[in-house]
C-alpha cells in the first residue's frame, strides 16, 4: 500500500474510488501511526479505533458494491475536542467537562458521517479554546514537530499537529480570534476560517457566540476545498447560519489568478506591529509570486490592528464569561490557570463596554468591506512571529497576541492561512488571505496557484524523517535544523499527567 502518512484527501479519494486503496488498511495504518507518535506530539487526547474501524469496514463494503459517496468516503478525520460526536466525551480539554458525553452529533460531524468519512478521535485544544498552552490540565498540550519542542499555536493545536506529523489527512478546528489560522501558521499546514454563517456551529462548545467559526484544516489547499465542501451549508438550528447555495470549491482551483486584484495590508505588519523580518519578507515575496502569476497587487489600508483587537477582546471576554460564569462561581479550581484568567476577564467588563464593542464592530465591518469592494482578496501576515518554545509561557503569550487574524473574526470575512516558507533556522512562516463574504472560492483559487508555484506545503518536519526515515514525498526545508528529541516509547495510553 502507498505510504498513508502524508496521503491527502484528493489523492486518497481517487485511490479509494478506484479500489486501489482500502479504507480499512488506510485507517489501520493511521491508527498505528497515532499510537507510535502520540506520546511525543500529544495531538490526540482520545483515539477511537473501534468507531474508526467499523466505519472503515462499512465504507469499504459500500465502495466495493459501487456505492462511492464522494471524496470524503473512507477518509479518516478527527475533531478538535469542542465538537460533539454522539456518545463520545466532549471535554474541551478541561477538567470542568471531563464527564460530558455528547448526546448528539454536531452538525459538522453529521455532515462528515454522511459523506462517509471515518472518525479517528478527539484532538487536543487549548482549554475551552481560550487557555493555553497549559500544563495543569488533564492532558498535556500538543507539541509542534517543527523545531524540537515548540509551541504549535492554538487553540486548534492538536488538529494542526496531527496533520503536520501525518496522523490524518483532515481535521476540524474552531476559530474565534484566529484559532484555526494560528496553529496552521505555526505547523506549516493550511487552515480556513470560513465566512461567519457558512459552517454550522451547532454542537460545538462555544467560546464567543458572535465570533465563533468552525473551519477545515488540511495539508493542501485542494484538500481544504474538499473538506469545506463537505461541511458548508445552511443549518436551521444555528441562529447564525446563512442560507445560500454552496459553490463547487474544487472547480475554482482550476481558474487562473490573472485577473484578480489583491490588496496588500502592509501596515498591519510594518506600522501597527513590527513583524519578525523573515515573516515580513515572506509576505513581500508572496506578493511578488502573485504578481508573477498575473494578479494585480496594490497596497490597501484598513483600520489599525489595535482597533480590531480592542473590539474582539471585549466581545470574547464578555461572551465567554456569560457561558462560564456558573461554573466559575461553583468550581473555579477546576479550570487551568490560563483559562481561568481569561474567563475571569469577562467578570469585570460592563454591559456598556460590550455594547460599545459591538457598535464598534459594526463600524469596523462597514469600513473594511468598503475597502474590499475594490479588491478580490487581501494578503497580509497571519502572525508576526515564528513559533517559540512550548515551555516558554511568556513567549507563547506574546506571540499569540502579535497577530493579524482577529480583524476577520470581527468582520466575519473568510480568511485562510497557508505556508509561505521557512526561517533560516527552519521554522514555518505563513501568509493570510482574506476575501469578501462567502467568497471562499476566490481564496482557494489564489492559494492553490501560490501553493503550486512555491511548493511550501510539501515540506515535512525534518525530525519526522529522522524518526522513521520512510516519510512520504516531503522535502526538508533547510539543512541544519535543530534536531528534535527521539520519540518516546509507543503507547496506547493517551492521558498525560498534566505536568510539564
Amino acid at each position, binding site marked *: 500500500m502507498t505510504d498513508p502518512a502524508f496521503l491527502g484527501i484528493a489523492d486518497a479519494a481517487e485511490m479509494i474510488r478506484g479500489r486501489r486503496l482500502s479504507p480499512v488498511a488506510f485507517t489501520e495504518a493511521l491508527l498505528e501511526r497515532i499510537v507510535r507518535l502520540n506520546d511525543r506530539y500529544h495531538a490526540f487526547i482520545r483515539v477511537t479505533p473501534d468507531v474508526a474501524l467499523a466505519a472503515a469496514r462499512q465504507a469499504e463494503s459500500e465502495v466495493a458494491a459501487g456505492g462511492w459517496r464522494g471524496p470524503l468516503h473512507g477518509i479518516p478525520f478527527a475533531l478538535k475536542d469542542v465538537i460533539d460526536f454522539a456518545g463520545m466525551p466532549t471535554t474541551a480539554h478541561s477538567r470542568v467537562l471531563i464527564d460530558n458525553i455528547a448526546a448528539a452529533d454536531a452538525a459538522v460531524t453529521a455532515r462528515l458521517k454522511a459523506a462517509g468519512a471515518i472518525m479517528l478521535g478527539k484532538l487536543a485544544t487549548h482549554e475551552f479554546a481560550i487557555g493555553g498552552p497549559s500544563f495543569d490540565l488533564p492532558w498535556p498540550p500538543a507539541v509542534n514537530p517543527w523545531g524540537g519542542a515548540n509551541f504549535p499555536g492554538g487553540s486548534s493545536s492538536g488538529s494542526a499537529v496531527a496533520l503536520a506529523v501525518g496522523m490524518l489527512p483532515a481535521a476540524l478546528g474552531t476559530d474565534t480570534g484566529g484559532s484555526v489560522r494560528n496553529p496552521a501558521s505555526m505547523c506549516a499546514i493550511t487552515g480556513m476560517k470560513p465566512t461567519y454563517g457558512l459552517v454550522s456551529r451547532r454542537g460545538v462548545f462555544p467560546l464567543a457566540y458572535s465570533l465563533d467559526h468552525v473551519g477545515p484544516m488540511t495539508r493542501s489547499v485542494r484538500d481544504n476545498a474538499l473538506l469545506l465542501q463537505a461541511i458548508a451549508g445552511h443549518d436551521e438550528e444555528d441562529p447564525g447560519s446563512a442560507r445560500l447555495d454552496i459553490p463547487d470549491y474544487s472547480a475554482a482551483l482550476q481558474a487562473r489568478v490573472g485577473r484578480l486584484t489583491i490588496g496588500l495590508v502592509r501596515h498591519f505588519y510594518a506600522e501597527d506591529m513590527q513583524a519578525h523580518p523573515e515573516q515580513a519578507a515572506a509576505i513581500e515575496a508572496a506578493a511578488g509570486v502573485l504578481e508573477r502569476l498575473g494578479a494585480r497587487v496594490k497596497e490597501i489600508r484598513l483600520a489599525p490592528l489595535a482597533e480590531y483587537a480592542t473590539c474582539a477582546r*471585549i466581545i470574547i471576554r464578555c461572551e465567554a464569561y456569560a457561558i462560564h460564569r456558573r461554573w466559575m462561581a461553583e468550581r473555579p479550581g477546576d479550570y487551568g490557570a490560563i483559562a481561568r484568567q481569561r474567563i475571569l*476577564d469577562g467578570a469585570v467588563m460592563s454591559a456598556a463596554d460590550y455594547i460599545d464593542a459591538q457598535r464598534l464592530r459594526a463600524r469596523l465591518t462597514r469600513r473594511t468591506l468598503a475597502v474590499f469592494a475594490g479588491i478580490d482578496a487581501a494578503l497580509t501576515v497571519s502572525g508576526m512571529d515564528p513559533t517559540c518554545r512550548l515551555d516558554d509561557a511568556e513567549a507563547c503569550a506574546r506571540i499569540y497576541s502579535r497577530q493579524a487574524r482577529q480583524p476577520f473574526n470581527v468582520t466575519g470575512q473568510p480568511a485562510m492561512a497557508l505556508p509561505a516558507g521557512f526561517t533560516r533556522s527552519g521554522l514555518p512562516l505563513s501568509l493570510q488571505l482574506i476575501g469578501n463574504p462567502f467568497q471562499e472560492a476566490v481564496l482557494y483559487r489564489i492559494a492553490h496557484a501560490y501553493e503550486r508555484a512555491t511548493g511550501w506545503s510539501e515540506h515535512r518536519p525534518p525530525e519526522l524523517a529522522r524518526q522513521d526515515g520512510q516519510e512520504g514525498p516531503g522535502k526538508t526545508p533547510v539543512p541544519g535544523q535543530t534536531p528534535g528529541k527521539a520519540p518516546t516509547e509507543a503507547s496506547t495510553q493517551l492521558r498525560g499527567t498534566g505536568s510539564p
Partner: protein
Amino acid sequence: VAEAAGLARLEDKHLAQLACSAETGRELSGALPKDLNWSEEMAPTFRLPPRAGR
C-alpha cells in the same frame, strides 16, 4: 467585585487573577472609541426568521 459577580468561591490566587482582569478591563474600556454616535447600532446578531408563506 468578586462578591458582586457572585464569585464567592474564588481562592486568594483566583482573586489576584481577578484583580489583573480588572486592570486590563479598564485599559480595554479606555481604548474604545469616544466618537461612537448614538445612531451607530450594534452589529445585528439577532435575526428573526422570515414568516413562512401560506
